[in-house]
């Protein structure tokens, strides 16, 4: 019964990468490419947030703040101080991780509703700072003139080029998440999600593991923030507020908790949905809310959960599945 666990994740990741690269050629025109880029940016955050919420069970209603910290850090480094872009990128990811590290200790002692409230409060405070620290962040009318991304001498001018970069980044992030979850750390996180008592009795340092996954998910959000800033070359506080944090949580829950692929699917679906609803003009907000409510009601464990249940049912068509 020895299944090689090593290659399975890598194989899935290579398949996923090939799929991502093929997508642009299937699109009717390049307009949809920018949706794919924004979708992949959201997917990077959603995968990180799923490690925190789905696997470790720690809810966060303030993750847009880390996305913003990453974006503003690189914007300020590259535009105001004229530092090279790789320095800006490193600064973005490190700042998000550092702030998460500081906030994690007091916050992660809390549970359930209190944790949700603490992360929510933190998110709002950070978005207010983005809005008010005018001479640093450019204030409410945003930060202009962020240089296009240039790595190893090559500037990513075209959307297609940027999309290919995002395909690489997203695949690596997915592989990182899959490998991490299929390891000692992953087991410890899933264990403390069910019972912190039992996990710590088996030698799992609860506080350290919670802080690790909180900082990791913040760093991934920071990375996405960096790539977003250099893609749009303009950022404004409104994109990093409470409503985006809520959208991120919905992407994770809709995609399926504790499922890396689920959060990737959730992220792309919820990025494309408003664009598809554009035809409905004013009532698209109604349709968005309705889809949200109905999906959660009829797919409580998300798209991934639903598919898993479906496949398990199909495999056991004969045997009565005791747990529906």
């Amino acid at each position: 019964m020895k299944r090689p666990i090593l290659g399975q994740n890598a194989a899935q990741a290579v398949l996923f990468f090939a799929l991502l690269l093929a997508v642009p050629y299937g699109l009717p025109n390049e307009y949809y490419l920018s949706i794919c880029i924004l979708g992949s940016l959201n997917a990077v955050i959603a995968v990180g947030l799923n490690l925190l919420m789905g696997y470790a069970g720690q809810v966060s209603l303030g993750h847009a703040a880390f996305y913003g910290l990453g974006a503003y850090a690189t914007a300020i480094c590259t535009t105001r101080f004229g530092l090279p872009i790789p320095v800006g990128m490193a600064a973005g990811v490190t700042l998000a991780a550092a702030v998460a590290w500081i906030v994690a200790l007091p916050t992660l002692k809390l549970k359930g509703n209190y944790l949700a409230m603490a992360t929510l409060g933190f998110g709002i405070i950070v978005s207010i700072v983005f809005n008010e620290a005018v001479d640093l962040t450019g204030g409410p009318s945003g930060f202009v003139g962020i240089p296009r991304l240039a790595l190893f001498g090559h500037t990513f001018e075209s959307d297609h080029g940027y999309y290919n970069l995002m395909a690489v980044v997203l695949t690596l992030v997915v592989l990182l998440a899959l490998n991490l979850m299929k390891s000692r750390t992953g087991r410890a996180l899933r264990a403390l999600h069910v019972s912190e008592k039992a996990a710590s009795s088996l030698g799992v340092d609860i506080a350290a593991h919670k802080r690790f996954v909180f900082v990791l998910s913040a760093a991934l959000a920071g990375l996405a923030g960096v790539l977003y800033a250099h893609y749009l070359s303009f950022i404004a506080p409104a994109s990093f507020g409470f409503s985006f944090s809520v959208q991120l949580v919905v992407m994770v829950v809709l995609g399926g908790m504790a499922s890396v692929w689920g959060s990737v699917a959730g992220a792309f679906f919820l990025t494309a949905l408003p664009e598809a609803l554009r035809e409905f003009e004013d009532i698209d907000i109604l349709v968005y809310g309705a889809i949200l409510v109905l999906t959660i009601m009829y797919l409580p464990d998300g798209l991934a959960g639903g598919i898993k249940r479906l496949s398990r049912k199909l495999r056991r068509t004969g045997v009565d599945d005791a747990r529906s």
Partner: protein
Amino acid sequence: MPAANAVSPAPPAPLLDVCAATVRFGGIHALTEADFAIARGSVTALIGPNGAGKTTMLNAITGMVPLTSGDIRLDGADIAGLPPHKRAAAGVVRTFQNLEVFTSMSVLENVMAGRHALTRYTVAASILRTPGFRRAEAACREAALDCLEFVGLADEADTPAGDLPYGKQRLLEMARALAADPKLLLLDEPAAGLNSKETARLGDLIRAVCDRRHVTVGLVEHDMELVMAVSDHITVLHFGHPLAAGTPDAIQANPEVIKAYLGEDE
């Protein structure tokens, strides 16, 4: 049931030595000046009526509850100051009165999680799938499968832990604790909710853990039949203080114990 217990030889230095342990929650004196020792290689039971402080003692030893005063030595080393997650590495592991099985994971993953303190590789190694990681992970799988076989759950390795029936989840918790290669395994009312057949099998398993896997066992239990059958040594707690300690036969005959349990006969 195994043959009557032979009288154990002159007691060697105890594996676990709890001296004058006191635990107070606000006004309640859960434990007062309680001494409790578990000899190496023995099955030692801790019994007493409800509220006698049995589970508090267990929680104190495993660090779930802080000691107000007194100290706890394991293999001579003071572990009173260690946080709960460091006690597993020190060699003390426990099961729980009401099941704490990781239902979202498979049976095998549960037991592999038990070996958390023993699987040595860095986070980076796990992400990059280094050879060191592959070896440690394979060893962990191996040991986990071995523990599953030991408790008789080998063929349920891939079923989600939440799907197992109650009795088997009890066995899973045992296997998971064993996977941590403890010096001392503390069982918190393992027989709770089991029928007589399952309790008998549990008794054999506890003996096997002690005799074949050479793990010292501390047992908190109400089922007297199981306690008397399995234990080499028994300590009776009464209102947070030891009332008596000795072999099962001595304890059964001890008037103090009978009085405490069955109350004064007029």
